[in-house]
């Protein structure tokens, strides 16, 4: 790089500055040893912000655990109240077809609640599971037998015409009966 005129003056000033810095620079060995000591020093494991965040997290988890434990029995009771449970599965299905759903559910839920209160925990759980399965089955049956209220509107007197196809071995007159009205008129 060419140093012309004032560039040389600037360089002179910089070199003077460099000289001053070099004379006052800290020793390499001292700096290196301090750096070595710093790198060997174990990291401060405890940081206030980190500890506070961890404590908050733990507190939150504990609160959630306690809350979920407390809310469990209530959930069970409500489950018992809604699940239908009857001894005879087939009987329930046949009743379901004849009786309205609400009434049956009420009855079975009452029966289940009473049953659960009386029986032991294991037996009651099994009963609940069975009742749950039955309810699902009943629901599936109800859905299967469901018919649209507008299904009757789709039926018409000309349904037979649309649904039937002419046979290939029919005679010509018979075939012509499937043609539009105008063509038939011309024949006549």
């Amino acid at each position, binding site marked *: 790089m060419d140093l012309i005129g*004032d560039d040389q003056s600037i360089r002179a000033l910089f070199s003077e500055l460099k000289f001053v810095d070099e004379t006052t620079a800290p020793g390499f060995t001292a700096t290196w040893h301090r750096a070595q000591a710093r790198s060997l020093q174990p990291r401060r494991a405890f940081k206030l912000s980190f500890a506070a965040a961890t404590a908050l997290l733990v507190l939150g988890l504990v609160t959630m655990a306690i809350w979920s434990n407390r809310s469990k029995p209530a959930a069970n009771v409500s489950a018992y109240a809604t699940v239908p449970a009857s001894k005879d599965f087939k009987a329930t299905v046949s009743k379901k077809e004849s009786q309205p759903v609400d009434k049956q559910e009420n009855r079975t839920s009452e029966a289940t609640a009473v049953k659960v209160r009386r029986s032991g925990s294991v037996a009651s759980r099994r009963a609940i599971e069975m009742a749950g399965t039955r309810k699902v089955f009943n629901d599936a049956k109800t859905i299967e037998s469901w018919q649209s209220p507008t299904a009757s509107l789709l039926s018409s007197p000309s349904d037979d015409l649309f649904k039937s196809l002419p046979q290939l071995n029919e005679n010509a007159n018979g075939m012509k009966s499937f043609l539009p009205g105008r063509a038939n008129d011309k024949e006549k």
Partner: protein
Amino acid sequence: MEITELKAELERLHSASFGWALSCCRRDRSEAEEVLQTVYVKILEGKARFGGESSLKTWLFAVIRKTAATEYRRRLLRSLRLTGEAEDSNEQLAAHETQSATFERSEIQEHFQKALKSLPRRQREALHLVFYEDLSLREAADVMGVSIGSARQHYERGKKRLRESLATMELGYGLNWGRSEHPSAV
């Protein structure tokens, strides 16, 4: 590169590194020492590794520059958080000013440093790397993390501004900072 070999190289470059650290820390000696120590810690811990893509000096200077910027941000945040601490740092700065004043023997040097401090960071860096560290513009660009064209611009503008500020200070120590006497200068 092995650590013993690296250590020998670092020792050779130590005073230049300290000068560069001083420039990056706005001539704050304690901060420069801290930065240099942090750089050595980074090297020892393997956080800063010399890959051999550039010269060791360029790589080391780039690490120093980055570390100084990080330290500066950290200090700024700390001083913003604790106003009391800021007062302390002001006192420290004043102490450093008096300390450095003893080193800056000539008045010209004092004016020069003031002019240098008044320059934008990039321009100051470009001038320092070229004039103080004897690096080429390409090497300076590598250290600064900019393109060579950008480094050249910073260098030229920095030189111009430095000349202007020195001229306004009217040093009159037998030095003429104007360009009129050097029409051939580019």
